[in-house]
């Protein structure tokens, strides 16, 4: 969808330290992230008109786990609140829609997940198609490997270019990485994301309120998300038509972007997404290190929007953020942010 008549902007965000294993509860992580996001803006929790939290009960191991996360937003007196069982990037989408009603000015969205609570390799297969995939233990590494093979066969990536993506994200040396054993052929350990605990919170504001609070708001000028068929074997894995449609709808072709933050947890996904979005070397992709450096499930996509917003806060004029959900880039979200002189 293109820009609404009301200006809606990202005006700040914060993330907790991104670690392999935290002693803190998800609620504690969120309390920290929200405080760190609003305090520099001179806001308190009382100023927040609307919240939308993204998290996943399956990862937390508790039904209605988002209810205890409400403790982090200071929900008294009662607040307008919503929740998505998705990455915080989709919570951002919902807040963007809500702000367009025009009756409220400030929204906070979050994404949170303690991946170390369970074993992601065993949990994700249970979230798959329950008839044909979950009983086989079809795991994310398997699907990623099968998609990598398709992307390589299409000439979009090879094992070397994938290793180069890993080196840009995490450092190291391509030759050394390529000498490693396969983890799940054609993937090696460097092609695969880390397991990360963490949370992020982002503040949105409308029109004049945004301009009063910060010097350079990151205006959301286009935002869309699209999904594909749930069964990866029914899709062309060397393409991502949902990303292409979402980007087109968000106005990617209207003007060049300087930077892009792509939620590519696996190295070949970054190469495929660059191809689908038509990015050449002129677009600086994942300068944050992306999901290959830190992969806090349910917050990874929201962090992409945050890093893209940082580019605008720092004087940049146009940036793209991408988030994804489901096996083999099943569902894709594209958000375009712009600064104004």
């Amino acid at each position, binding site marked *: 969808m293109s820009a609404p008549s009301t200006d809606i902007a990202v005006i700040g965000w914060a993330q907790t330290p991104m670690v392999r294993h935290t002693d803190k509860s998800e609620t504690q992580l969120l309390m920290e992230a929200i405080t760190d996001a609003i305090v520099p803006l001179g806001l308190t929790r009382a100023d927040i008109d609307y919240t939308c939290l993204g998290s996943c009960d399956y990862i937390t191991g508790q039904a209605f786990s988002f209810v205890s996360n409400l403790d982090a937003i200071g929900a008294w007196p009662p607040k307008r609140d919503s929740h998505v069982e998705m990455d915080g990037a989709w919570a951002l989408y919902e807040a963007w829609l809500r702000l367009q009603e025009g009756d409220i000015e400030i929204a906070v969205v979050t994404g949170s997940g303690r991946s170390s609570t369970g074993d992601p390799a065993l949990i994700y297969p249970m979230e798959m198609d329950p008839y044909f995939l979950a*009983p*086989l233990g079809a795991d994310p590494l398997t699907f990623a490997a*099968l998609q990598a093979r398709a992307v390589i066969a299409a000439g979009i990536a090879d094992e070397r270019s994938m290793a180069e993506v890993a080196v840009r994200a995490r450092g190291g040396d391509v030759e050394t990485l390529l000498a490693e054993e396969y983890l799940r052929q054609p993937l090696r350990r460097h092609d695969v994301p880390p397991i990360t605990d963490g949370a992020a919170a982002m503040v949105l504001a409308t029109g004049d309120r945004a301009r009063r609070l910060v010097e350079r708001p990151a205006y959301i000028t286009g935002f869309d998300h699209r999904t594909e068929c749930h069964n990866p074997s029914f899709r062309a894995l060397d393409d991502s038509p949902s990303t292409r449609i979402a980007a087109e709808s968000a106005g990617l072709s209207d003007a060049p972007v300087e930077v892009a933050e792509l939620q590519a947890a696996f190295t070949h996904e970054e190469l495929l997404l660059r191809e689908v979005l038509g990015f050449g070397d002129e677009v600086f992709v994942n300068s944050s290190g992306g999901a290959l450096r830190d992969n806090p499930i349910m917050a990874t996509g929201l962090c992409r929007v945050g890093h893209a917003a940082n580019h605008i806060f720092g004087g940049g004029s146009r940036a793209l953020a991408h988030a994804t959900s489901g096996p083999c880039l099943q569902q894709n979200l594209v958000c375009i942010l712009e600064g104004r002189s």
Partner: protein
Amino acid sequence: MTRFIESTITFPYKRSLGPVVGAFMTALTEKQILGIRCQDAVLVPPMEWDPATGAELPHEFVEVGPAGTVESWTWVGTPSIQHPLDHSFAFAFIRLDGATTPLLHAVDAGTPQAMSEGMRVAPRWRGSREGRIDDIICFVRGEAAETEGEDTGGATDPVTRMDYLASITYRNPVPEAADRATEASREHRLLGLRCPTCGRVYAGGRGLCPVDAIELGPECEVDLPHTGTITNFAIVTPVQYPGQTETEPFVRAFVLLDGTDVIIPYSVVIELPADQVKVGLRVDAVWASPAEETEEGGGMGGSWGSLLGWIPNGEPDIDDPDLVNRIF
């Protein structure tokens, strides 16, 4: 040092299959694999709707395979407990003869060197089949399907349901405030935490003020009275499900502690028949004696520790129509 607690949650799902998946699963018991016609294509596994348009597909099933061709594969060197084989194997997209889309399944090939795109494979069937995708143990090299163990034949009735047991083990940090509340309960103390910002007092070891969204440390601890009034209650008639230990109707009451604003929720009421519990009843805390201490603590569970519940103390009832509103 934060303490962690491990818990395993199981979800015994019973999934209804519907007319299309049900037909596929029923056919598996007969060692047949069905696809569904979708315009010019044959979709395997069959879907109820056209994945491109969402239009409902007519139930035009097509038998495919049983042999097929490996289109893509990856090698699983170390199988998980969820995987179909307990030794290394390939996950592969297998396009069964007559199908347009590939099926994901395991191939028992021994080594990754034995795998290749274009390789011909056929199912290894389970002798005793229930109508599940894992009635096919895996695929093996060649054109001929095989059966492991004694073949007990197809299902006598159509398969309409599939059991799936999801089981996940989680490891969660225990808030320090919860441990401190449990420790205090061993000395028969009921610990509260007073928020320095709003003055509200919380019991139960949550360790934070949800109104101000701040953490409450040991400096916020206060001792709470052991006497209160039942503000509201429910009589729970237990439904038998896995893990349910109650068999008779029981009460869960909300207790407002004297001189405070603190509610102890979901409280056990001791030595009083369920039909005699009432709003306004005066109660005292009952603590486990050292001899009764168990690993799990008293009847209240969690960080309530040695607090077993509440017992009528004989004082006159409180007659206040607003009491019932106090459940938090």
